[in-house]
């Protein structure tokens, strides 16, 4: 049984948060550069130029790319042959989150959903995070982290279609979500789509799909094709960067399905999780 120290996990998470919120993810950097080259609308090109300039300032000054430094979202794979010494893994993630956000001068954005009072004094700085645990073989701990802003979450949607709706129904739902969202979620976007599983699992998968690097093809050729078709169709909407009108609305569509593309014989769950252009995601293996 491999032993990992609690303090080491706290520090790794803290460092990852501070780096990730101030340094644009390399896949997003490349995607924005390409969008700037391809965008035909002058207004949208000007917006994309600002975003690239913003990334330079943020990197040089270690300043948050966006003031909405998000909820901290984690997908954690824990090996069955690894043990944390000095505290639990969950506590380490919580402590690393609070330290990363507070010491990195990031915004505490968690609040009580009824009183709307900030939770920093009651629960801790930007706590609690959202954590999904999974057990795997091996002696490693793999942690994926994203800072997920509110603007793009607010326009995300989930539904359960009738099986007869099929691929066309899925496409129509995704198109409606992106079209209705318009300028609000800070396009250009990555559109995460979870298909199948259950009502709740489709939403979790739509979120997890956003961790895949832009430009990495879907391992399932049929889904890869569907992603490309959807991207092309969504870019016909004309929304453009920050909704100013343009040709580059969607940088990528990512689809994730459950094991063996499973869902119940009566259902076709579909969830769309929108990611703004300020995609802040990274992962570490401990």
């Amino acid at each position, binding site marked *: 049984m491999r032993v990992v120290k609690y303090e080491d996990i706290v520090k790794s998470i803290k460092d990852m948060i501070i780096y990730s919120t101030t340094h644009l993810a390399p896949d997003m950097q490349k995607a924005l550069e390409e969008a700037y080259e391809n965008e*035909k*609308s002058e*207004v*949208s090109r000007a*917006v994309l130029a*600002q*975003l690239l*300039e*913003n990334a330079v*300032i*943020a990197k040089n*000054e270690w*300043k*948050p*790319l*966006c*003031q*909405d*430094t998000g909820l901290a979202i984690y997908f954690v794979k824990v090996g069955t042959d690894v043990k944390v010494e000095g505290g639990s893994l969950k506590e380490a993630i919580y402590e690393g989150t609070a330290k990363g956000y507070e010491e990195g*001068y*990031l*915004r*505490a*954005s968690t609040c009580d959903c009824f009183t*709307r009072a*900030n939770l*920093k004094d009651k629960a801790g700085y930007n706590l609690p995070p959202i954590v999904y645990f999974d057990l795997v073989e091996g002696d490693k701990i793999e942690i994926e982290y994203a800072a997920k802003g*509110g*603007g793009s979450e*607010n326009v995300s949607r989930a539904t359960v279609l009738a099986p007869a709706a099929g691929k066309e129904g899925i496409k129509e739902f995704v198109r409606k979500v992106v079209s209705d969202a*318009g*300028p*609000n979620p*800070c396009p250009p976007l990555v559109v995460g789509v979870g298909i199948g599983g259950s009502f709740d699992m489709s939403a979790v998968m739509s979120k997890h799909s956003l961790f895949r690097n832009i430009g990495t093809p879907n391992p399932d050729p049929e889904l890869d094709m569907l992603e490309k078709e959807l991207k092309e169709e969504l870019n*016909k*909407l*004309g*929304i*453009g960067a*920050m*909704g*100013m*009108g*343009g*040709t580059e609305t969607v940088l990528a569509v990512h689809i994730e399905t459950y094991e063996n593309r499973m869902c119940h014989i009566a259902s076709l769950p579909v969830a769309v999780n929108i990611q*703004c*252009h*300020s995609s802040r995601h990274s992962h570490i293996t401990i």
Partner: protein
Amino acid sequence: MAEYKLKTPLSDEDVSKLKSGDIVYLSGVMYTARDAAHKRLVDLIINGEELPFDVKGTVIYYVGPTPPKPGNPIGSAGPTTSYRMDPYAPILIEHGLKGMIGKGKRNEAVKDACKKYKAVYFGATGGAAALIAKAIKKAEVIAYPELGPEAVRRIEVEDFPVVVVNDTYGNDLYEEGRKLWEQK
């Protein structure tokens, strides 16, 4: 599409010359507020009480910045989504508010108020928060410190870059821009 440099407070004349799509660089004093602060401001108006700042000719920036790093007046400070302020904006416009800075669509009531009382909705680039912070030279919390990032701040800005989204003539850049590039 024209380019203007304007100083706050803004007059009817200032905002009347602006058209959707125009680029504007704003300088002077403005105030920050998000929905929690807007609710309190509007409650003050309804109860006939004094506001923490003079709303006449003012520009409100919809932002909840990150905490400032030592030596900086403000942290990263990009716009938040504006629809959350839609229930409160018309009454502020009626009382003399001339400009709002945010991102995303406004409802018909806000657009109508912009036409009726002459006010403009500006869009700033969401996610360009480190860049926009460069235009903010001073910041001071003047009301509701308990709201943390949502407190009302008096900020002094220089050449703050914005685009006119909704003008005083009922135009909407989001609708026009999309129509121009939409492929059926």
